[in-house]
């Protein structure tokens, strides 16, 4: 089966500014794929091209086998979209909204079931203008899922959530994967990507800097380990290696020979956060162009 999303050499230009400068990636079916990057990196532009909201300036894009620029109705039947911030009719109730939206799709899910999935049972009869921010976000989820989509776009789905609400949203996203759905998630919470995504891509200044499983994403491509401990005089020693077995053997053998202990000994892999910060650090002091477009 072909990839759910395939992006080849994607470019987007706004006037003189190139917001996306040649991006390639693929999202397999059933995968949760995270798109990471600082504000202005080109994440939202990229996702909105895939969603069919924007036209690309160059490159090839396929979403479930369709070119999203064609805005085929058949494609929109199979895609659910949670935008960063979208309003809703203020005087509609949760149940009315889902009933109405269900009518847009030829194979809609049961309204009551989707209300339960989004955790909105107690608010089903409430009007939208009486919902809290978190409840509105859950309504966004519910409206995106009502058509039983194969592919779901989530643009910063938990921004502004409290920790409990985030955990609940994460559970919902995990349940989507359990159902075999494909999810494209953009976020600037690295723990969210680490927690949910099968693979992530890091974008900055319209370019893709790294791509891979969150646990295996290495800045230089090599597997790096960080070994740290406090030596006899209490100072912290950090060593990096691609062969922790040998290094540990040497360190511990030497310590034993001296009759010392290695306090606070730890072996860690660089976290997604380390990799992210390293990759997205500004080398040049001047901010790059294109910042205004995300």
């Amino acid at each position: 089966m072909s990839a759910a999303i395939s992006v080849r050499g994607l470019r987007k230009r706004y006037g003189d500014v190139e917001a996306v400068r040649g991006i390639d990636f693929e999202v397999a079916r059933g995968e949760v794929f995270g798109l990471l990057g600082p504000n202005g990196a080109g994440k939202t532009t990229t996702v909105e091209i895939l969603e069919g909201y924007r036209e690309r300036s160059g490159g090839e894009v396929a979403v479930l086998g369709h070119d999203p620029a064609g805005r085929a109705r058949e494609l929109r039947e199979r895609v659910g979209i949670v935008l960063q911030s979208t309003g809703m009719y203020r005087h509609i109730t949760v149940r009315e909204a889902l009933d109405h939206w269900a009518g847009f799709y030829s194979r809609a899910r049961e309204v009551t079931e989707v209300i339960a999935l989004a955790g909105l049972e107690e608010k089903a009869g409430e009007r939208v203008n009486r919902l809290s921010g978190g409840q509105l976000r859950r309504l966004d989820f519910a409206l995106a899922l009502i058509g039983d989509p194969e592919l779901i776009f989530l643009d910063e789905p938990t921004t502004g959530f409290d920790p409990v609400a985030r955990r609940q949203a994460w559970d919902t996203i995990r349940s989507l994967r359990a159902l075999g759905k494909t999810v494209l998630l953009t976020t600037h919470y690295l723990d969210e990507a680490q927690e949910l995504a099968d693979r992530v891509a890091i974008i900055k200044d319209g370019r893709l800097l790294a791509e891979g499983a969150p646990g295996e994403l290495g800045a230089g491509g090599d597997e790096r380990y960080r070994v740290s401990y406090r030596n006899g005089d209490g100072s912290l020693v950090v060593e990096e290696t691609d062969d922790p077995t040998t290094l540990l053997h040497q360190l511990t053998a030497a310590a034993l020979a001296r009759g010392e202990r290695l306090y606070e000994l730890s072996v860690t892999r660089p976290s997604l956060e380390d990799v992210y910060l390293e990759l997205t650090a500004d080398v040049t002091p001047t901010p790059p162009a294109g910042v205004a477009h995300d």
Partner: protein
Amino acid sequence: MTEVAALTWRQYRLERRLFWRNPSAAFFNFLFPLILLGLFGAVFSGNQHDLNVIVPGIAGLSVMSTTFTALAFNLTFLREQGVLKRMRGTPLPAGVYLGGLAASAVTNTALQVTIITLAGKLLFGIPWPRDWPELVLFAAAGVVCFASLGVALSHVIPNFDSAPAYVNAIFLPTIFISGVFYDAASAPAFIKDIAEGLPLKHVIDGLSGAMVTGKGIGDHLSGLAVIAVWGAAGIFLAIRGFSWDQRRD
């Protein structure tokens, strides 16, 4: 085709239900012209000449307010809130959605013109319309013209907070110079010249012909042409500038 009709009907029903749940929209789109009619009707009570002006005048005003004003406000709000963008992401065809919105506005026009016609007969000594086709023709021409101009105006309104300023800067002068509240024949020449170039005066003349003076469609062909020119410009601008997304700048 039947599926499109069924979807449009569903969208229309939702828009109607939500319209009545929004007190400020219901007031300004619906009650306001009727309150004006009541006030001016009371002021001109017993003066049939003025009543003959005010009843078709208010009918013309309500054609404009239910379409031009209402759609400019609505679309600015729906665009700013992101409702348009959300709709754009669903399989609902764009024409169905906008058709439902427009049909809801036109329902308000039809209801108001009906109420004003009834009030004219029952309260203000105006006979039943002599020329029903003319009444329908000018109301319909006004609807198409003002609805498209309202959609076009929504493209230049930067945000919902400034919508009243933009809309009223056009709506209020237009209703004052177009002879809603007084006999346009008694206005100064330069005011008359401006009003002649605008569509509202000709909508009111047509409605007045149907309701009061008995002048037929044939006497209002040049007015119909002015409405048609504005309508064509409105349709062109409404389609050309349409955006589902709030402009980013």
